[in-house]
């Protein structure tokens, strides 16, 4: 086979090219020809096709994501915003924190262990590339029905993969989610979040500047992994026969990544890099074009210098390979030797593969012959933009009219008790200990809070106690009922979770998991969710710093519930003042903060008891969320509360049971005047939390709530070894613990 050089492409303008097989549309191919003024070479076509895929170019989502920037609230905290590998937030004392959530959904369905493992690996490199030391990971997960046989295949593999990779990197897992719903059958969601910490001056960006600077590829050798994986895996839906092109699965090597981390941090410390980029989806195509596009000059790469694991790879394949555990750095010539020395110290292979030029082209050579000559911006940043049609689905009205508040309710205490046990033992509400026990939460010695707390909390300065808290949330059922509100509820819950532990919410990352953008209904869900999230971020003053979009999550015509997963990062001046969730002091008073309305649409109760999804999700009141957060943070700082737990799915009773079980203490509750016991226990009104208040602090606490206008209702006392709702029922902690903890092991162990 002759090498398809630029010269050859010039000479043979009429050669048929497989643009359609590579996922390009006719007009996209035409545009490439127009940009280049000739047909692309095979290597160029490979690069464009992968970089212009949905996954890399965000061509369907871009027009909606724009709002996150346009509506971004003024925030002094934002040091680096959307567009870089991850956003960076100022958390004070000279520290900056970077965090981001990404999806690895489709790969995890095909090969659960490796798919999930490389999901962790990828997000960790993103964080590393910003100049930060990764300090924690989280894993929001969604699976099909808990008792479906395929869940038995997918879930254990995913969990083992996340643990296998994260544990081996030495990153504590501090939280996540596990949600079961038949809508995720065949489309599990495996999202992964990483948090990193650095000093302000250590922030690094992905850009290649300085003519003559060297391009160094370091880390693993390049093999045939996931060639075309990005475009195929992320942008094409599966049908009965499986994926159209089954690409080689990427296999992770966490040990290699651990070395890469330590090596990279040492290189940063000695100030040896001008720009840096991780290799993720689209591999070298992405790294070289993005670095060159963001920089001032051009770039010249000798592709045959790339160390290979498989010597038969063609140049196109090398450009597309998604071999894991690789990074690309721009280094001044005088610093190259020291850079290579540090790599050698860590047993990391490093190779100079090119240099920054004073031109404005990305040029790639193969054994001396030019195979790529493109304007890098057209590859990396000026891909196609679609204004896909969208429309509110016809079924939306009927769904919302199917009111959950009208479902039959338990009659009397005995039935309430039964339903409480059923709820607490249902797969979605049950303890996830069987899963989270497979994750190391202690490594690095700075984990202040981890699952099952409302948010994970990491100490970042041992002297001052400065720390950060992160929570992730998303409720696909709410979003299905109303995607605008659902996205806001995801943010509100995550925000509330951070505040419940005593941290002040600062910034947002999000992973938007949706169906096919080519379906106007799914596109409408996406558009609404973006609008909802952007509006809510503006109202709460928490900018979106970055995130990820995963589309085409559907099997045939059936899409998953629209599932925006929102991560919120908060800061706490002194982690000693954190608020845990456990009720551990006998005699403390239990207060319910916020208003309880009759809101059962999309609730856990409606799902568990009636298998129902319909009506409207709970109302969102962002001003109330903000007030609640302020109170929770003040109360924590001033020592007025000993425990706090936010209310979300499962309502008050779920939160109460969790706090009691964690602390090993019971509670006696009184249903507040004017509230129906059922609504009191099961409603999922937003903007609420329960707290336990030492008697000595009661007055100070209720005064503060009164003055600020936050409803605070005394609902009971921490006491005994049962949960008792006066006049209704009582259930022992032992019985609650049994049903709460037995469910998941029974399904999976």
């Amino acid at each position, binding site marked *: 086979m002759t090498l398809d050089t630029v010269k050859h492409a010039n000479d043979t303008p009429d050669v048929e090219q497989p643009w359609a097989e590579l996922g390009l549309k006719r007009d996209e191919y035409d545009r490439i020809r127009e940009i280049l003024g000739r047909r692309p070479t095979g290597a160029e076509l490979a690069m464009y096709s992968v970089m212009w895929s949905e996954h890399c170019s965000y061509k369907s989502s871009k027009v909606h994501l724009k709002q996150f920037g346009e509506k971004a609230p003024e925030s002094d905290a934002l040091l680096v915003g959307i567009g870089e590998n991850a956003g960076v937030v100022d958390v004070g004392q000279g520290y900056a924190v970077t965090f981001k959530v990404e999806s690895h959904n489709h790969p995890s369905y095909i090969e659960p262990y490796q798919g999930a493992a490389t999901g962790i690996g990828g997000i960790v490199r993103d964080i590393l590339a910003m100049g930060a030391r990764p300090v924690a990971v989280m894993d929001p997960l969604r699976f099909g029905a808990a008792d479906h046989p395929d869940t038995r295949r997918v879930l254990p593999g995913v969990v083992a993969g996340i643990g296998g990779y994260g544990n081996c990197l030495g990153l504590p897992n501090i939280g996540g989610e596990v949600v079961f719903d038949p809508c995720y059958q065949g489309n599990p969601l495996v999202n992964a979040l990483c948090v990193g910490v650095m000093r302000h001056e250590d922030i690094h960006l992905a850009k290649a500047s300085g003519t003559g600077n060297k391009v160094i590829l370091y880390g693993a050798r390049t093999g045939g992994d996931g060639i075309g994986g990005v475009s195929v895996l992320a942008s094409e839906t599966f049908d009965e026969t499986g994926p159209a092109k089954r690409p080689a699965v990427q296999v992770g090597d*966490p*040990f290699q990544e651990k*070395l890469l981390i330590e090596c990279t941090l040492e290189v940063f410390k000695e100030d040896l890099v001008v720009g840096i980029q991780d290799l993720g989806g689209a591999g070298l195509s992405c790294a070289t074009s993005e670095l060159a596009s963001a920089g001032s000059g051009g770039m010249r790469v000798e592709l045959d210098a790339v160390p290979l694991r498989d010597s038969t790879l063609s140049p196109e394949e090398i450009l597309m390979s998604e071999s894991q555990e690789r990074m690309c750095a721009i280094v001044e010539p005088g610093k190259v030797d020291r850079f290579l020395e540090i790599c050698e110290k860590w*047993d990391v292979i490093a190779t100079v593969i090119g240099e920054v030029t004073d031109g404005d082209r990305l040029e790639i050579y193969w054994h001396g012959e030019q195979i790529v000559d493109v304007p890098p911006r057209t590859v990396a940043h000026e891909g196609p933009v679609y204004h896909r049609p969208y429309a509110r689905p016809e079924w939306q009205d009927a769904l919302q009219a199917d009111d959950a508040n009208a479902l039959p309710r338990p009659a009397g205490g005995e039935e309430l008790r039964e339903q409480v046990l059923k709820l607490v033992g249902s797969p979605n509400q049950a303890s996830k200990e069987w899963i989270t026990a497979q994750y190391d939460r*202690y490594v*690095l010695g700075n984990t*202040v809070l981890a699952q099952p707390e409302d948010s994970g909390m990491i100490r970042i300065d041992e002297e001052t106690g400065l720390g950060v808290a992160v929570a992730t949330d998303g409720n696909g059922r709410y979003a299905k009922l109303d995607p605008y509100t659902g996205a806001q509820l995801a943010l509100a819950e995550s925000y509330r979770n951070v505040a419940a532990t005593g941290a002040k919410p600062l910034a947002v990352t999000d992973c938007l998991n949706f169906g096919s953008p080519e379906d106007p209904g799914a596109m409408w869900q996406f558009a609404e969710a973006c609008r909802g999230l952007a509006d809510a971020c503006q109202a709460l003053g928490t900018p979106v710093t970055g995130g990820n979009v995963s589309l085409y999550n559907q099997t045939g015509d059936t899409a998953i519930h629209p599932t925006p997963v929102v991560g919120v990062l908060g800061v706490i001046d002194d982690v000693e003042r954190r608020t845990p969730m456990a009720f551990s002091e006998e005699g403390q008073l239990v207060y319910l903060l916020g208003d309880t309305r009759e809101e059962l649409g999309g609730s856990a109760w409606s799902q568990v008891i009636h298998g129902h999804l319909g009506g409207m999700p709970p109302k969102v009141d962002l001003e109330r969320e903000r007030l609640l957060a302020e109170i929770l943070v003040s109360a924590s700082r001033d020592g007025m509360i000993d425990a706090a737990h936010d209310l979300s799915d499962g309502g008050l009773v779920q939160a109460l049971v969790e706090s009691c079980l964690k602390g090993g203490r019971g509670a006696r509750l009184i249903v507040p005047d004017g509230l129906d016991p059922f609504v009191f226990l099961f409603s999922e009104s937003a903007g609420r939390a329960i707290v336990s208040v030492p008697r000595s602090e009661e007055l100070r606490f209720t005064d503060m709530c009164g003055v600020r206008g936050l409803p605070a209702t005394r609902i009971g006392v921490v006491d005994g070894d049962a949960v008792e709702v006066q006049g209704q029922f009582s259930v022992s902690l032992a019985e609650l613990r049994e049903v709460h903890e037995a469910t998941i092991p029974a399904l999976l162990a």
Partner: protein
Amino acid sequence: MTTRIGVVTFPGSLDDVDAQRAIRLAGAEPVALWHRDKDLHQVDAVVLPGGFSYGDYLRCGAIARFSPVMDTIIDQARAGLPVLGICNGFQVLCESHLLPGALTRNDHLHFVCRDQRLRVENAGTAWTSDYAEGQEITVPLKNGEGGYVADERTLDELEATGRVVFRYLDVNPNGSRRDIAGICNEAGNVVGLMPHPEHAVEALTGPTTDGLGFFTSVLKKLVTA
């Protein structure tokens, strides 16, 4: 002069920073030792920390055992240098034959991270003198290959000579024979265990501060020596 305790970093070591912190909190000076360096830099004791040295590929601890620093540590441990192997460090000690037996895949086949109650069975070693015999402590445990195995004769001998230093209470988290969580060599200067005392040295980040005693024990021994 402050006591200097070395902490070895192999490629893939993870809890080295934690071990250093624990040493500092106990009042000694942590000294970082590098796997390629044979020189122990005059440390008075050595900790082999937890983690996944060499990715735990082949067998946990098997590749680390052949590093240059281990050549020196093996010699000096035989000559009486106090050495503590935690988790992966314990695995390295077994692979080095400084301690008998081996650590195998957990019987339930999962990695497990939990707060583990232990009984201190031998308070006479270099690393346990600050505990009382029979004392119960709680420290984190986290491993995928922590099942302690040895042949019956070795197990009997360990029991008979008081070399079972820690035993699991409540649950046996990994299928270890006779609930063994940690053992020592005949001289009592080399101790290995699967649980992680270095993660239980601060109330803020650990389940307890029960782990600090390991480091104060060796400190006392070295100061009075």
